[in-house]
């Protein structure tokens, strides 16, 4: 059996996963949809995510240890339905990883490199993904534990430096054009939210603390939400009506530092930290995709799914090279957004139904089904 991940590691992965896709292109997209009220849109969407997270965590603590989401759906509904759900999740994770990798690439060519050979980028990325997808979630969690403080300091700098250029009038009045723009934003940006879904993949692997098992994870989630909300406040406060043109928000904010240039080009801290965040995000998504394949095909081997997922991610990256704007345009259409909401909340409702069914069956002993053979992994 794969080694368990601690609540600390789970909380960190969830926090980074929550932050990663929201600080690059989403701010400009949200502003184009909701105007100056986009921070209200983000606040509501994050609140919904928090509710989803709390529901899943509460259910996780009540389920028997070692029972995965696949196991619970197989037992309560049926195995074909579990395979169908995991297939949907596989496509969902691959789509999100594509957005992450394209944002990473565009971030590099805008902030770091004049010329970035696509083959060098893709080959290196393939090898990184291949390596990360083979490793257990615990390795990713440990990596985040090591990187946590530098990440925190780096992204905190991003918030503090531009504060001198903020204007409160850019944030007011709240909902000047009513609630319609906020709704418009909520409807079209769902692909960037629903991050609690990865807890379904972590199900059965989390070693909860004895006392207050969910507290640490919820605290991490609240911290991430607080950071994201403050980022949007600072972003809209600084840029106002020019926010819609800042397509890579995290890279643009340090440029508007009101402090003198004697303290150097501090945006380099942001650049370095942010690339680490995006690579880890892509690794988590890749690992989640591998787990979906392992469950669908009932295998415990790590290398073949890692090769498949890395190859698919690389192929998708090449096919959609320099098409981030097209991908985002598709991702923010009404159809895709509604499908994403369906995935997030539909699967959550399925989980609740499955839990109720299990509970009502009054099984005194919950058996871990032999869906996956028990084997030590290094």
């Amino acid at each position, binding site marked *: 059996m794969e080694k368990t991940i601690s609540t600390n590691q789970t909380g960190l992965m969830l926090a980074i996963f929550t932050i990663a896709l929201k600080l690059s292109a989403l701010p400009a997209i949200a502003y184009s949809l909701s105007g100056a009220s986009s921070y209200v849109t983000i606040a509501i969407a994050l609140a919904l995510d928090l509710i989803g997270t709390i529901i899943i965590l509460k259910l996780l603590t009540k389920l028997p240890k070692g029972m995965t989401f696949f196991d619970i759906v197989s037992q309560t509904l049926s195995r074909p339905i579990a395979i169908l759900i995991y297939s949907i999740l596989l496509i969902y994770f691959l789509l999100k990883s594509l957005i992450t990798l394209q944002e990473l690439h565009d971030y590099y060519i805008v902030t770091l490199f004049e010329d970035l*050979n696509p083959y060098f980028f893709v080959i290196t990325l393939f090898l990184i993904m291949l390596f990360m997808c083979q490793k257990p979630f615990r390795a990713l969690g440990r990596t985040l534990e090591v990187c946590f403080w530098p990440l925190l300091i780096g992204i905190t700098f991003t918030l503090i430096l531009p504060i001198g250029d903020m204007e409160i009038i850019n944030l*007011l009045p709240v909902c000047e054009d009513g609630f319609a723009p906020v709704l418009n934003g909520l409807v079209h940006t769902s692909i960037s939210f629903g991050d609690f879904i990865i807890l379904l993949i972590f199900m059965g692997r989390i070693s909860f603390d004895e006392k207050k098992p969910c507290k640490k994870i919820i605290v991490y989630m609240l911290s991430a939400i607080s950071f994201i909300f403050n980022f949007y406040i600072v972003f809209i406060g600084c*840029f*106002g009506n020019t926010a819609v043109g800042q397509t890579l928000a995290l890279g643009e904010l340090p440029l508007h530092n009101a402090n003198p240039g004697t303290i150097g080009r501090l945006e380099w801290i942001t650049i370095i930290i942010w690339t680490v965040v995006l690579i880890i995000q892509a690794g988590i998504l890749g690992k989640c995709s591998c787990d979906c394949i392992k469950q669908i095909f009932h295998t415990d081997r790590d290398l073949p799914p890692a090769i498949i997922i890395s190859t698919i991610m690389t192929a998708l990256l090449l096919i959609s090279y320099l098409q981030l704007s097209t991908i985002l345009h598709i991702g923010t259409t009404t159809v895709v957004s509604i499908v994403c909401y369906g995935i997030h909340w539909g699967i959550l409702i399925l989980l609740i139904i499955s839990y109720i069914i299990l509970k009502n069956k009054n099984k005194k002993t919950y058996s871990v089904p032999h869906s996956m053979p028990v084997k030590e992994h290094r």
Partner: protein
Amino acid sequence: MGNLIKRMSRNKYFYIFAVLIIIMFPSTLYMQSDKDKTIVVTTLGIDYGDDGYEITTLAITPLGGQDTNVNLEIFTGSGETIAEALENISNNTGKDVGLAHCDCIILSIDIMDKNIAHALDYFTRTSNLTTNATLVATDGKSKDLIEATKSSHDLLNLSVKNIVIYQEGKSVLNNVNIEKFYRNYLSHSSTFYIPVLSTEESDDQGSSPGGESGGSSDSQSQKKIQNNNRIIILKNGVYTADLDDKEKMIYNIISSDAKQLEITLDNVNDEYVTNSTEVFQQTDKFIIPWYSIENGRPVVTYHVWLSMMIDEIESVENHSAIAISGIIKYLTPTAEKLIREKIDSALSSTIDSMRAKKIDIMRLYEHFNAYHHSKWRKYLSTLTDESEYLDGIDIRIDLHLNYVV
């Protein structure tokens, strides 16, 4: 060493690393150095004529091992668009124009007869420009100012940006850059301010270190930067008016970013001086703008706490110890009254000018809309023409003076 290699060769990642090196290393051997491919532009000037745009760039051409002053060069290019003009420079020099270190863009006043947004559009979209460049205007050709900048840099290591940053501390100017321009341009008030620099010829017979490298500098007559503290207002991106001295003083007082203020009082007669001119200098300022709607009328009150000290007393009758005393409070009731009268007069003139030219530098529309949205909309609905909203706004300065010995 042998053991180390043996250990490394047992690790599979060593082979992956080796493969990567073998793939990537050969391609880097033939890569051209960046210094041979790019000219690094520090200042860029834009002129506009019948033939389109003329771009003048002050660039550093890295030559290694030489005094940096001789590496400054001026390049010009023209075209119907900014992109074409820059391409023209690249064609003539055989190098790419690198804007990553361009921190100043000079616009000639001719461009401001039309909307300057059309000249700045390239710079908002290109990823070549990674800085938020300062905007400066010149009443002549931007090419002349760039030549003067080169001369000043050679002699004094001065740059246009230094001058602008200094001026920002003394006036309403604050972060006069591209992003700020667009923020104001796209706002309701659409008002922006730009400092204007001039050039003057100086018959300098001495040679300058950069005189031999640049073909454009005349060793006999050099151009110098001249700052007459001129500030112009753009409305909808088009030149509208200059700020006069009274307006500059008022905007300086009510701007929280202005750190320097001088108030000169003529013909002061009080217990310490007779028929004297006194100059007071600001030492500290704290300002709270307060926006309210009173009886349906918008009122903005700038509560200003201003600390001042005496800077200079000019008088033919300063022949007593009092004249040079450092502990006397020169801000007498008479002097204070004169200061208040001066400010009130300037405020009245400024308000008239604001209303006549419909220029809203302090973004009063945005402030009232943000803080009192419903009452503000109600006020606007009472107007026959919404663009004349300034006519009904009551602007006050509540001044608290303090003297610093």
